[in-house]
């Protein structure tokens, strides 16, 4: 399902709603080019999980860890600086992908696609439409659930 988001604030609000639909133990692959808004969506997901601290880009650190108020974890991973699966394993990425008490968001997941394929991960893609607006491509089942709890202001379905 494709959803249009008017601006960063809307993308973040969509993230907040999506957080309610994820379960701990799940891995979310976040596709999208530079500047698409992956970190903005991630910040929304963090807010939806009750995390209030600043959510900054994980590009340099590769992994950012946030504790949720109920004692779970949100891992915000970024494979931008990781060359391939071997480098990711050497980094220690598996610890992050297999924690059942954590939701792991993975930016630039195509770098480690072979590690994610068997992982039944949720694939979300963000595309540029123009300078401000973005298109979010969600798995249909997730999109349906999102419609049930209601889209935020500034978002609309463009392809069911």
């Amino acid at each position: 399902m494709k959803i249009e988001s008017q601006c960063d604030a809307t993308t973040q609000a969509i993230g907040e709603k999506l957080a309610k639909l994820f379960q701990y133990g799940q891995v979310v692959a976040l596709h999208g080019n530079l500047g698409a808004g992956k970190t903005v969506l991630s910040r929304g997901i963090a807010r939806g999980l009750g995390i209030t601290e600043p959510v900054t880009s994980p590009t340099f650190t590769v992994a950012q860890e946030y504790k949720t108020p109920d004692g779970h974890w949100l891992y915000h991973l970024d494979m931008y600086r990781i060359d391939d699966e071997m480098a990711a394993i050497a980094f220690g990425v598996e610890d992050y992908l297999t924690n059942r008490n954590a939701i792991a968001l993975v930016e630039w997941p195509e770098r480690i696609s072979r590690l994610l394929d068997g992982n039944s991960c949720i694939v979300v893609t963000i595309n540029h439409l123009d300078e401000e607006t973005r298109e979010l491509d969600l798995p249909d089942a997730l999109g349906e659930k999102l419609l049930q709890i209601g889209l935020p202001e500034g978002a609309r379905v463009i392809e069911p």
Partner: protein
Amino acid sequence: MNILGIETSCDETAAAIVQDGHQVKSSVISSQIALHAGYGGVIPELAAREHLKNIGPIVQAALNQARVELQYIDAIAVTSNPGLIPALLVGNAFAKGLAATLGIPVIGINHFLAHIYGTFIDNNESLNNPENYPILALVVSGGHTAIVLIQQDGNAKIIGSTLDDAAGEALDKAAKILNLGYPGGPIIDKLAKTGNPEAFNFPRSLTGARGKPLAPEHKFDFSFSGVKTSLLNTVKSMTHIDDILPDLLASYQAAVMDVLIMKAIAAASEYNARLICLCGGVACNSYLRQNLQTAAEKARRKLLLAPPKYCTDNAAMVAGLGFHYAKNNLLGTLDMPANARLDHNLGILPFAIGN
């Protein structure tokens, strides 16, 4: 007092021996000795397993170069936060094992504070001059962008930091957008030298420019995500960029650096900081060094620029800072943890004059 410093928070494995916080007897960094040590010159980045391979030889090299034997090491200081957890664990496990064997203390060091201390290794006397306080530190690297205020009693507070991307990351990503290579900072610095910084008008986020009101709580915060997107849009709209590449880079670099300079000077004025110090990897940038110098002179503030060798990751700053903890008996324990994130509560810095 001889301190062995160990740094494995990110790409570099580093070890150093520093006496009394300022006499650097050796400072060894993996990328520097890679070519001489039979690694073939290429060290994969970010791999904890590379730290595991490097750590023993690097520490040995630091001891050899300093001509200090292990029995004359008084304490081991190791970066324990913030950083990449798998990488930090290697340094911390090694430091703890060695400290336990030698029966000497281990001290956990905050990498972010170590960068600030890096400014003062060769300028220790600046820390002892009460006329320099409060000190304002602008910490800019690939992972951090923050303004820290340090009082004479050692009380330190982050008064502003990035809300999204770090300044170094803004440079790396720009280099990526333009296919210039990694890391982007040094490449952009070089190519921008012949360009016109006013050729393109990139946004200065969170400055109140372009009529966007600035929330008071973000007065000294930074945001570099927007300027990156703006560059991307500019590049997409053009067919030939080769001719105007220097102008494009000079303008982009200026947009990033001007905000850093503007906010540092404004914060120094608001908090009446007498001395501004610049540190972290991006502190190597020549535009930033020059223009901060000019701005500080105009604002009548003293300025200390960290020497380039202590801007990028190194263990001398870790060992140097470790001395001040050891002197004040602020020691770590064998069960101290490693943490990925920067705790915004910096506590009391042991190197200020009050200590």
